[in-house]
């Protein structure tokens, strides 16, 4: 919290309001930097986003392993829901089977306008999902920046994987 000289808060905003207004400020800061990096440096910029997202995903993986007790599709899918809920993504779980979970998002919280930037950024989610279960995959099957009306984040068991 930020205090005034008299010790009172600088803002009367509730935590709900702060979440609703503050989190998008940081998301947009990330998106703007990505877009500029990709515009100026092209493939090298996108590779950079992938690399940093992978590193960040690996950092989170240790924490995720403690929280997700089972490495099945559903448990890992719910962990992805938890990540999305932290940043208040609007959407629903449209598929919740033993081999496939689909999280459908109505809007991109960043919001990305390029599929390449989206793909590079979601390396983090892919690293976490595939790190939690080596027979699991993470893909964005429908994508708003790609022209779809929703984003479908799919956590699935690799073909031939254990059910």
């Amino acid at each position, binding site marked *: 919290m930020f205090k005034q*000289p008299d010790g009172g808060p600088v803002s009367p905003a509730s935590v709900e309001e702060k979440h609703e207004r503050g989190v998008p400020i*940081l*998301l947009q800061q990330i998106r703007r*930097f990505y877009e500029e990096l990709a515009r100026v440096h092209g493939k090298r910029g996108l590779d*950079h986003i992938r*690399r940093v997202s992978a590193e960040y995903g690996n950092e989170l993986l240790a924490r995720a392993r403690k929280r997700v007790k089972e490495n099945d599709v559903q448990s890992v899918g719910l962990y992805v829901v938890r990540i999305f*809920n932290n*940043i208040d993504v609007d959407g629903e779980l449209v598929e*919740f089977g033993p081999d496939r979970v689909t999280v459908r998002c109505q809007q991109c919280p960043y919001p990305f306008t390029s599929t390449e930037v989206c793909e590079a950024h979601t390396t983090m989610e892919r690293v976490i999902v595939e790190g939690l279960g080596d027979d699991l995959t993470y893909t964005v099957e429908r994508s708003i920046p790609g022209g779809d009306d929703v984003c479908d984040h799919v956590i699935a068991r690799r073909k031939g994987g254990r059910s």
Partner: protein
Amino acid sequence: MIRLPESIDYEEVPIEKRYRAATRALSARIGALYRRAVDEFGDEALELIRSVNRRHARDLARDLCEGGGPRDAGAAALCLARLLDLVGMDGEVLELSPACARISVESCPFGISSPELCEARTTLESEFVRSLADDLHVEIEKCAALGDESCQFRIDRVSR
């Protein structure tokens, strides 16, 4: 929020915890992105960080501080403190007058330890204040990246 069928057992996380987790994680991610960009692209990355933050700051000043009211150092400091508060930073306004104001931030949420990167990133705060009134000047008086115990911004009204 992601809506779930009632049959699914899911432990809701309280909003306070989600807010803290999100602001900390996103700030850390921004810091990591910037640090690694400087490793990879050097001064070009610093200039990119400055230019992106300048644009972001102007939009934020317009969105968050629209409306009348004085545009002196004290008013600008309060507006900046509200922005820092929104993105989850902890700190305090130490001094508040029309001519001069000082804000202290407890620690760097971006995990930045290089003065050059700190200067590039804080283009956001400097430009935010300048967007409110172009006779205001921001100086970083203390910098955790340089070994100080906290970061401190000083805002002065400069005569033209």
